[in-house]
């Protein structure tokens, strides 16, 4: 079917609106990650009833920089951002058939692990560039 200029001009604002909505949704998801990190910042390094160590100031600072780096690089929002239980933090991705994890240790060092069908196929240090 021919695409007339009239139909294009009618369609464009809708597409743009949808893009705006999607961008706003993604921004909101990243904001929730920032909010979670700020919540942890209220009592960094606390030890809970299960003897789990919650994120340290160093790991929260590094996680904040990692969020900025991933967000500004157009990367997807992680499936989960969770405490490591050892003062660190994990960002987990679950693309189909695999699993990617950014681990931030209690000192703020970041590494990326990639699993293919549970096999660890990559483990590299990640420099924070922000």
């Amino acid at each position: 079917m021919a695409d007339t200029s009239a139909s294009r001009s009618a369609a464009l604002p809708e597409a743009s609106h949808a893009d705006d909505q999607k961008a706003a949704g993604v921004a909101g998801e990243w904001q929730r990650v920032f909010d979670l990190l700020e919540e942890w910042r209220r009592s960094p390094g606390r030890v809970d009833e299960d003897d789990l160590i919650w994120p340290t100031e160093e790991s929260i600072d590094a996680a904040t920089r990692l969020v900025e780096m991933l967000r500004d690089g157009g990367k997807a929002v992680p499936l989960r951002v969770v405490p490591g239980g050892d003062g660190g933090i994990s960002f987990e991705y679950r693309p189909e058939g695999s699993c990617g994890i950014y681990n931030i240790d209690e000192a703020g060092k970041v590494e990326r692990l990639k699993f293919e069908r549970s096999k660890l196929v990559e483990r590299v240090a990640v420099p924070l560039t922000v």
Partner: protein
Amino acid sequence: MPLDAAFVGDDEFIYRRIPVSTGWYDPAAAEPASPRAFQPHPENDPEGLSVSRAKSEEHPDFPSLGEASLGPSRHGYFVAVLRVGDLRQRGIDVVADPLEENPGHALIPDLTSGNRNSAGTWELMSILADELTLRVEGPFHVADESPTD
């Protein structure tokens, strides 16, 4: 405790508690638990990762699912359910380590505080979370009455 309780049978089920507060499992996400749910504690798992053998006709003194879910966190726990034979098929052993408060306590000796961050341990944690967990039950809360199996 029955005389054969020192031997953990392939057909036995084991429970691994997952604190709700950590976010290591989200039933709404339709995704496996985080591998972190199977990572040994930095200090408290020197001999192996803590699990609990499931109550059965053969082992009536072992904890039920509800009893295995009990712990100190006010936020409660999920409980991952795994089968010992499945773990052994992947080369992961489970050994009895009865405690006074839990005669069904057992250990996965390949996962310890000492090797908790090695590449091999991360791979085993991933296998346990993604491939060997049969289901995750809960959440159970401290205030809940213990559910029956």
